[in-house]
């Protein structure tokens, strides 16, 4: 008779096992805030379609204390999403070769983060110009 009795360890709470996993769960969690922002924008579109009073209610919510707090949290989480997205990009992107040499992962992340910075300033700049230039 075989005495073999392989023991399978449970996976409960695996994400607490290693700081690496905790960070992983944290950046996965940013999806909740991406979802909330999509929902908020959708609500805004419906308010805009419904008329002036509904839109007034929507903008009043954005300017209220709970609205500012919630959106402050969304802003932070979206920033975290962006940073973590580009930090794992060297793992997800096909190897990039320049002049026959593989570009190091840190360079890929740096380029991604720079693109995030440039795109963000472009968006903010564009809307500020649009708003301040009077006519869009």
């Amino acid at each position: 008779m075989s005495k073999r009795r392989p023991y399978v360890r449970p996976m409960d709470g695996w994400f607490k096992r290693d700081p690496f996993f905790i960070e992983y769960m944290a950046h996965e969690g940013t999806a909740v805030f991406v979802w909330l922002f999509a929902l908020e924008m959708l609500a805004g579109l419906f308010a805009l379609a419904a008329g002036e009073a509904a839109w007034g209610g929507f903008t009043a919510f954005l300017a209220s204390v709970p609205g500012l707090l919630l959106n402050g949290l969304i802003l932070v989480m979206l920033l975290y999403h962006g940073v973590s997205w580009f930090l794992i990009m060297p793992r997800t992107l096909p190897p990039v070769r320049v002049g026959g040499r593989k570009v190091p992962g840190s360079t890929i992340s740096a380029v991604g983060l720079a693109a995030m910075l440039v795109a963000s300033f472009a968006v903010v700049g564009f809307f500020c110009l649009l708003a301040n230039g009077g006519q869009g």
Partner: protein
Amino acid sequence: MSDQLKRSNEPVFWLLFGAGGMLAALIGAALVFVLVFAVPLGLMPEAALSYGAARAFAQHWLAKAFLFVVVSLFFWHAVHRIFHSLHDIGVHAGRGARVLVYGSALAGTVAAAFALALIGG
């Protein structure tokens, strides 16, 4: 062949997840800033968020396309990630939950198109 060798349909959802994730990473935070914080911080006049200005903006077809892409892709990105996170924490949702989760993103996509159509051009 076992069930495990069946072709996975994940590419569809993974591509939507990736596209939404990239868009959110590049400009997500900036969009929140523009919508919520630019006016209180004095970067934009209050009139920028007035009904007239917002409606005029959303009536332009380019803005419509932009808003549609942002809202729908953010939904697809988020639900895919949330669905996998549920699996990670031990909630192994079945086919029904899958339909529900991805169906919600589809509903968000349709709703965004509907609202933009209501706003008119």
